[in-house]
C-alpha cells in the first residue's frame, strides 16, 4: 500500500458519524487483510495435499507395475514360487497351526536390564494405562511383549464380525476418532482430554493408525491393549494404511525395523495378518455408519458383512498368489493365440515402434542404440509427452490397457466382473477374494465424498471413488441410516460436514502437514446420536501464535516442500521454459512460467497466486528463468552438500526407489541379498524376454555392491540408480557407469536401471 493518494482523502464528518466511518474503514481494511491470509492458507493447503496425493498415485502405479510382472511370470521352481509369495504377501494366510509358530514369543528372553513396561495376560486396565504412560516417557516395549500382544489381538479380532454393532444404551457416549498416523501425542491428548477408555467411555478408532508419524507401533500397542481390556467398549476399523504394501512406502515398515532390529521381521509378518482381521466398519444403534473412506454406488453392506475380510490382504493389489500356478497354462495359451490383442500396460513402452525390445542385454550394439535413444533428446521427450502429459491421460490409458488385458485394477468400475478366481479354489486353502469383494473393500477404505452428484473413479488418489450426495442419500435410505462418519482426509478444522450434514469427516492427527497446519478432532455420540465435536491441537506452541504467525509458519514449510519438488524437476523445467523462449532471450513471461511449471509438475496448484512467493523479481512481468533455477538449486545445495544434478535425481526418485528397495528386500533384512536380487531379475527378464544368465545377474549385483560386502544396501542401491541416470543424461551412451563389468560379460549393468528409471518413475 502506498501513501501518496492521501491528498484526495480527508475526513470532514460530523463527530458522531466520524467514529462510525472510521470504524467501517478499519473494518474494511482488516477484513481484506484476513481474506488475503485465508487465501494464503488455502494455497498452502493445496500444496500439501497435491504433494501427498501425487505420492499416493506413484505408490499405486508402482504396485501395479510389479503386480503385472508377477501375474505374467511363470515360476519354474518351488524356490521361485516361494520368493514370489514372500515378495508381496509374505505368507499365505497363516493357518492356525502356523499361528502357533507366532506364539513362540515365550521363548524370547526379556533381559534384566530392560526398564520398559511389562505385560501379562489377560491384560488388566492398569497394564494398558501403564503402557500409555511408558510411551509418553519415550520408553520402548520389548519385542516379546509386542509379539505377545499382537498374538492376543489377532485372536480377539478374528472372532469379530466385519461390521461391529454398538449401542449407546451400554455406554453413555461413544467417542469416534479418525486418522492418527503414528502421532502418539494426539492419542495421548485425546485420552487426557476425553478420558481413558472405560466401561462408561467407549471408543471407535476409524483406521489409519500407522504410517507417516514416528510412533505407529506404540499407537498400535495402546489401541490393541485397550481393545483387549475392554472388548465391548473399544473398537477399531481398518484404514487404507493398515496394509503392508502401504507401509513399505509410508514409513511403518521402516519404523518397525529400526525399533526392533532382531524381531522386526516377525512383528511385521504377524502384523500383516492382524491388519486383515481388523473389522471394516462400525454401526452405532443401527443408525450411524462409521467407516474409514466412504461408500460408492455399488457399496453393499450385506456383502460387506458376509465376505471373508481376512482374504483382503491388501487394497493396493488384487489377487496375487497362486494364480501363477493355476493359470499359467491358460495364460501361455492366451499369450500365444491372442498376443495381438493384449495391449501393453501403461508402464511398459507404448511401442509405436516395431515390437522390438527397448533394449537387449545380449547385444552391445542394440544396447548402445537404445541407450542413446533414451537420452533426453526429442525422442524421449516425445515419449514422455505422449504418455505422461497430464495425469488424466495416464489414467485413461491405464484404464484402456487394463480393460483390454483384463488386468484387474482399481480404476475400473461398472463393467461385468470376471468371476474367475474363486472357481480355482484349491481344496485345503483359503479361497481368494472375488474381484467384487475386493472392490467393496477398496471402495470403503479409499473413497472421498464430492459435492457433485454421482460416483466416479478417484483419480487423484489412484484408488476408490468420489461419491456424491445422491450416493450417500441412496445408501442411507436403503439401510435406514441417519448419517455417515468417515475419516481418510485431513481437514483444516479436524472435521467437516458435507452432503447436507449426512457425511461427517473426522481426522484426529493435528499438525499433520506441519506444526499449525490443521487441528485434530473427535466426535462424541450420545443416545440422541447428535454429533458433538471436540477440536484440539496437540502441540502447545501453536496456541501462543496469532493466526498470521501460524499461517506464515505453515506456509513457509509448504513452500519449502514445493521448491524441493520444483528443484527435483529442474531439467524438465528448463526444457519446458526453453519452449516458451523461442527467441532465446533467456526470458519468459510469468504467464508462461505458470503454464510451464504446471505442465511439468501436474500438481494443479494456483501458480499465479503462489508466484510472489516463488519468484522474487517480477521485472516487467518477465522472468530470467536460468537464474531462477539456479536460485532453487542454491537453496537445496546449502542444505545438502552434493552436486546439484545428482541431487535433483535423488530428490525426484527417492521415495519410489526406497519403496522398490523394500519390496525386493522381501525378508526386511535391510539388505538385498544376491538371492533376492536374482529372483527379482528373473521376474523382469521373463516378462521382458531378456536373455540374462545367472552369471550376468551376479556380475550386475557385484557391480552394485560397491563396498563388496556381499549384499546391496539402500545407499548402494540409490547410488547405482543415480550413476545410470547421470550417465544417460549426459548422453554418453557408450560409457557404462560400472566400467568394471560393462562389456566383458556381454551384458551391461546400466540397461536395467535405465529401464527401471523410465518405467517406474515416469513423471
Amino acid at each position, binding site marked *: *500500500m*502506498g*501513501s*501518496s*493518494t*492521501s491528498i*484526495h*482523502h480527508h*475526513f470532514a*464528518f460530523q463527530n458522531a458519524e*466520524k*467514529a*462510525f*466511518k*472510521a*470504524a*467501517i*474503514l*478499519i*473494518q*474494511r*481494511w*482488516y*477484513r*481484506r*487483510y*484476513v*481474506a*488475503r491470509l*485465508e*487465501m494464503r492458507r*488455502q*494455497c498452502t493447503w*493445496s500444496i500439501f495435499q497435491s504433494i501427498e496425493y501425487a505420492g499416493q498415485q506413484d505408490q499405486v502405479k508402482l504396485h501395479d507395475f510389479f503386480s503385472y510382472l508377477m501375474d505374467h511370470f511363470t515360476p519354474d521352481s518351488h524356490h521361485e514360487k516361494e520368493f514370489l509369495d514372500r515378495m508381496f504377501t509374505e505368507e499365505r494366510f497363516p493357518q492356525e497351526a502356523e499361528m502357533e509358530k507366532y506364539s513362540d514369543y515365550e521363548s524370547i528372553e526379556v533381559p534384566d536390564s530392560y526398564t520398559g513396561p511389562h505385560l501379562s495376560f489377560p491384560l488388566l486396565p492398569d497394564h494398558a494405562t501403564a503402557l500409555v504412560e511408558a510411551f509418553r516417557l519415550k520408553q520402548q516395549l520389548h519385542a516379546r511383549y509386542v509379539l505377545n500382544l499382537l498374538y492376543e489381538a489377532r485372536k480377539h479380532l478374528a472372532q469379530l464380525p466385519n461390521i461391529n454393532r454398538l449401542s449407546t444404551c451400554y455406554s453413555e457416549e461413544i467417542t469416534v476418532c479418525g486418522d492418527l498416523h503414528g502421532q502418539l501425542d494426539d492419542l495421548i491428548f485425546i485420552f487426557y482430554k476425553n478420558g481413558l477408555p472405560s466401561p462408561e467411555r467407549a471408543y471407535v478408532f476409524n483406521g489409519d493408525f500407522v504410517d507417516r508419524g514416528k510412533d505407529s507401533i506404540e499407537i498400535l500397542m495402546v489401541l490393541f491393549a485397550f481393545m483387549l481390556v475392554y472388548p465391548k467398549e473399544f473398537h477399531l476399523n481398518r484404514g487404507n494404511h493398515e496394509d503392508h504394501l502401504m507401509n513399505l512406502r509410508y514409513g511403518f515398515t521402516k519404523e518397525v525395523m529400526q525399533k526392533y532390529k532382531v524381531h522386526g521381521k516377525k512383528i511385521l509378518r504377524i502384523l500383516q495378518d492382524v491388519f486383515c482381521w481388523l473389522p471394516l466398519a462400525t454401526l452405532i444403534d443401527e443408525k450411524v455408519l462409521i467407516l474409514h473412506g466412504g461408500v460408492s454406488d455399488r457399496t453393499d453392506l450385506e456383502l460387506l458383512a458376509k465376505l471373508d475380510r481376512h482374504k483382503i490382504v491388501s487394497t493396493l493389489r488384487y489377487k496375487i498368489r497362486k494364480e501363477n500356478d493355476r493359470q499359467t497354462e491358460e495364460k501361455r495359451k492366451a499369450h500365444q493365440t491372442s498376443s495381438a490383442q493384449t495391449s501393453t500396460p501403461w508402464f511398459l513402452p507404448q511401442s509405436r515402434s516395431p515390437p522390438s525390445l527397448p533394449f537387449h542385454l545380449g547385444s552391445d550394439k542394440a544396447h548402445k542404440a537404445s541407450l542413446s535413444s533414451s537420452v533426453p533428446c526429442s525422442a524421449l521427450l516425445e515419449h514422455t509427452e505422449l504418455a505422461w502429459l497430464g495425469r488424466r491421460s495416464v489414467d485413461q490409458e491405464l484404464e484402456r490397457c487394463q480393460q483390454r488385458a483384463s488386468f484387474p485394477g482399481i480404476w475400473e468400475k461398472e463393467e461385468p466382473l470376471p468371476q474367475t478366481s474363486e472357481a480355482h479354489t484349491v481344496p485345503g486353502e483359503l479361497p481368494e477374494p472375488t474381484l467384487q469383494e475386493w472392490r467393496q473393500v477398496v471402495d470403503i477404505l479409499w473413497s472421498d465424498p*464430492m*459435492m*457433485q452428484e454421482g460416483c466416479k473413479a478417484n483419480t487423484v488418489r489412484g484408488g476408490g471413488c468420489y461419491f456424491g450426495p445422491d450416493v450417500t442419500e441412496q445408501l442411507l435410505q436403503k439401510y435406514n441410516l441417519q448419517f455417515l462418519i468417515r475419516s481418510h482426509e485431513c481437514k483444516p478444522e479436524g472435521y467437516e460436514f458435507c452432503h447436507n450434514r449426512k457425511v461427517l469427516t473426522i481426522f484426529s492427527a493435528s499438525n499433520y502437514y506441519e506444526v499449525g497446519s490443521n487441528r485434530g478432532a473427535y466426535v462424541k455420540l450420545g443416545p440422541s446420536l447428535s454429533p458433538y465435536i471436540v477440536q484440539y491441537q496437540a502441540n502447545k506452541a501453536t496456541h501462543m501464535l*496469532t*493466526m*498470521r504467525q501460524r499461517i506464515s509458519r505453515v506456509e513457509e514449510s509448504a513452500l519449502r516442500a514445493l521448491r524441493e519438488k520444483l528443484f527435483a524437476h529442474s531439467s524438465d523445467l528448463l526444457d519446458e521454459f526453453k519452449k516458451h523462449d523461442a527467441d532465446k532471450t533467456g526470458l519468459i513471461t510469468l*504467464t508462461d512460467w*505458470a503454464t510451464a511449471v504446471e505442465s511439468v509438475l501436474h500438481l494443479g496448484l*494456483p*501458480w*499465479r*497466486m503462489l508466484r510472489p512467493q516463488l519468484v522474487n523479481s*517480477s521485472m516487467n*512481468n518477465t522472468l530470467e528463468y536460468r537464474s531462477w533455477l539456479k536460485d532453487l538449486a542454491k537453496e537445496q545445495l546449502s542444505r545438502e552438500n552434493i552436486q546439484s544434478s545428482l541431487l535433483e535425481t535423488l530428490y525426484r526418485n527417492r521415495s519410489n526407489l526406497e519403496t522398490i528397495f523394500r519390496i525386493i528386500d522381501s525378508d526386511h533384512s535391510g539388505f538385498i541379498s544376491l538371492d533376492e536380487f536374482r529372483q527379482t531379475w528373473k521376474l523382469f527378464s521373463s516378462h521382458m524376454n531378456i536373455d540374462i544368465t545367472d552369471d550376468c545377474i551376479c556380475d550386475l549385483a557385484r557391480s552394485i555392491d560397491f563396498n563388496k560386502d556381499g549384499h546391496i544396501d539402500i545407499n548402494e542401491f540409490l547410488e547405482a540408480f543415480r550413476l545410470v541416470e547421470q550417465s544417460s543424461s549426459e548422453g554418453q551412451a557408450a560409457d557404462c557407469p560400472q566400467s568394471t563389468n560393462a562389456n566383458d560379460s556381454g551384458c551391461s549393468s546400466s540397461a536395467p536401471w535405465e529401464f527401471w528409471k523410465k518405467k517406474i518413475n515416469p513423471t
Partner: protein
Amino acid sequence: MEPARRFCSSPAASQRQGAVNGKGEEGGLQFNSITPWGAELFTQLSGSVLNPQLKKKKIEHATSYKRGKLALAEFHKKIKEAFEVFDHESNNTVDVREIGTIIRSLGCCPSEGELHDLLAEVEEEEPTGYIRYEKFLPVMTKVLLERRYRPIPEDVLLRAFEVLDSAKRGFLTKEELIKYMTEEGEPFSQEEMEEMLSAAIDPDSNSINYKEYITMMVIDEN
C-alpha cells in the same frame, strides 16, 4: 459509471470514485496501490480507449489493442485461479461464504454492504448456496476494470485510527478498540475481534499502538 451509486456507504470510497471519474487518465497512472497487473491493464485501456488522440498510427493501435487483450486474458486467468482455490470439487462453483475472500484476495476492499450488493449480482435467482464461475467472472472483471473498492492506503488508515483516538494519545486501550470495532460500523464477530486483538494488543500495556500496528501489518502483507 452506473454502479457508482452503490458506494454511498463509504465516504472514502466515493471520494476515490470521484477521482476516477473526474481524472481518469491521471488516476490510471498514479495508482501505486493497485496491483501491478491491474495498473498495467488500466494504463493500456486508458491509452487506447480514454485517450483517442494517442492512436497515432494504425500499427501502434493494433499492438496496444493486442496487448490490452493479452492483459485481459491474464486478468481472467487471475480471477479463475483465485476462484479455483476455493472450488474444492473442481466443478466451477464455490461456497457463497467464500466469495468475500475471493473478491478481497483479488485486491478489492469492499465493505460488507458493498459485498452484499455484489453477491446479489452473482447469485442465482434462487440461491443455492453456491456461486457459479460463469456468473462470477463478468461481474468480477467489471469490478476490476472499473477499479472499484480500491485498497485503503496506509495514511488513510492511520487517520481513521486517529479519529477514534480523540485524546490523541497515540494508542487505543483494548476496551476502546473492542467498543469501536464491535459496536460501530459493520461490527466484527467475536472471532474476528479475538483474532485482531491477538496481534494488535501489546500484552504489557493492554493497548494498541496503532501506528506501530499499521506499519507491522503493511510490511507483513508484502
